[in-house]
């Protein structure tokens, strides 16, 4: 698939497959992410996969090492172009399958009634549609451990709130357009909140601080407020 390669400032290289939320594009992103992680080009400190782009963050003197005439960007661009010109035989590793409990009770779903009304559906039907399919973790961003997942059934796709909340509780599950996500920490936010999970999406003390990684496949299942508190107390 064609892509554009451009600098992201003087310490980033952006590979952009098009400005879209599209599973096929994201497969390209994560496939190259995986190959670059294994190739581990000198000077690259971070690889940031997003919906339809992958960015290399680098330290220029290290990336330029041994090629004094070229810029660090050009040195890395050549390595990326080489990988893109030689695609692997097998595409992509399949992500992990993860089930996430969500309490859709009104006490934890402040925007569920309004979203259901807007979509012309009973709240139960919104929950059924939200739990009815497997979502792809396209990327993590915004906050540590925040998964951008999708895509939701078009019947429940809903634009962001016009007035973002100043405080969204940790664990809140939201919908923004065709995306669904989970707030790992309390923060401001503008997504429509339709439930809450008792799982910790981010824990600095864990060896793997985030529950999810790009490429994972997530399914939600409904739990009662009682189960919510039991799981929260046990985790």
């Amino acid at each position, binding site marked *: 698939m064609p892509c554009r390669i451009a600098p992201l400032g003087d*310490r980033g290289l952006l590979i952009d497959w098009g400005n879209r939320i599209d599973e096929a594009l994201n497969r390209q992103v994560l496939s190259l992410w995986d190959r670059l992680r294994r190739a581990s080009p000198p000077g690259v400190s971070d690889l940031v996969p997003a919906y339809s782009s992958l960015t290399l963050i680098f330290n220029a003197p290290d990336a330029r090492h041994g090629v004094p005439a070229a810029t660090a960007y050009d040195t890395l661009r050549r390595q990326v172009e080489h990988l893109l010109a030689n695609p692997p035989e097998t595409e992509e590793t399949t992500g992990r399958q993860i089930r996430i409990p969500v309490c859709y009770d009104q006490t934890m779903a402040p925007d569920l009634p309004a979203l259901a009304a807007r979509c012309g559906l009973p709240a139960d039907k919104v929950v059924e549609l939200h739990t009815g399919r497997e979502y792809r973790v396209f990327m993590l*961003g915004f*906050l540590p451990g925040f998964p951008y997942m999708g895509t939701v059934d078009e019947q429940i796709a809903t634009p962001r709130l016009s007035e973002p909340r100043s405080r969204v509780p940790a664990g809140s599950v939201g919908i923004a357009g065709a995306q669904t996500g989970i707030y790992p*920490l309390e923060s401001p936010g503008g997504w429509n909140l339709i439930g809450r999970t008792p799982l910790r999406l981010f824990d600095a003390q864990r060896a793997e601080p985030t529950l999810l990684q790009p490429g994972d496949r997530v399914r939600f299942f409904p739990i009662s407020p009682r189960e919510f508190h039991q799981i929260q107390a046990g985790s």
Partner: protein
Amino acid sequence: MSLLVLKPGLLDTIQDRGRFGYAHLGINPTGVMDISAMSVSNLLVGNKPDEAVLEMHFPAPRLRFESAALFALTGADFDARLDGQVVPVHTPVVAAAGTALEFRKPLSGARCYLSVSGGFEMESWLGSRSTNLAVQAGGFHGRALQTDDVLPFRRATDYGDILKGKKIIVFPWKADVRGLYPGDETLRFFPGAEYEWLTPGSKERLVTTHWKITPHSDRMGYRIEGPALDRNEAVELVSSAVVPGTIQLLPNGQFIILMADSQTTGGYPRIGHVIGADMPGLAQMRVGEVLRLQQVDLQAAEAAKAVQIQGLLRMRWGIYFALHAV
């Protein structure tokens, strides 16, 4: 073997170069705002340049050395006094045990850095000692300093043979940092991935306007005020990577320059990026100050950074000989 916080400042955090390798999980690097000041501060006391330092804003904290220490202040000049005696910036200073350090007024700059010889003993989180305030991890218990916090030093040195009963020894020389900062209010930038979304008139305004730093400016980003910039593309951007220095165009036509605590991804058009070499200068600019943007190419951006690194290397050797000649 420690520094005691008698009274905290506005925002005092432990920072190093930043936490890299976890941006794909949304974990932002954080780290010092002014990497040049961090490096110089460490070099002045014989540390490696990226040892963790204390980053302070004004009002700055009141601190007490619980043991003798070789320390240095760099970056902003907050008119520091050690038991009443003037402590110049960019100079190594030996403090006797029991002396108190305070800062009287902000003379220049926005962020002052304090290093101690041997470094602070801090737990590392994911390979860095930088404080990540959003997740409350790294640095000193993942938070800004509070009254009665004790910051332990990694190395105990008594300095009795240098102090000979005095409370303070100020070394008779200072590091020359002029080459590490822009000479005026001009910051160099490089066009971003969505630069072409700007109308021709807006591209022109970007480089001709005197932009003002608003009070909504912090370690996450500087909100900049001036004439609105217009887009010729009404397209929504799906989230994609951003870095400190990225200039994001907000829906109201104003822009923000992302700083050290920036998120890893964002959905606003990236109209440009302030070059790495000019970020330390921007980190020292204060609310209300005016800046101008000057467009450069990638070669110029990398060359400017290389010149800075060479300057630091020269300084490192200069300081090494100066310290060992005492």
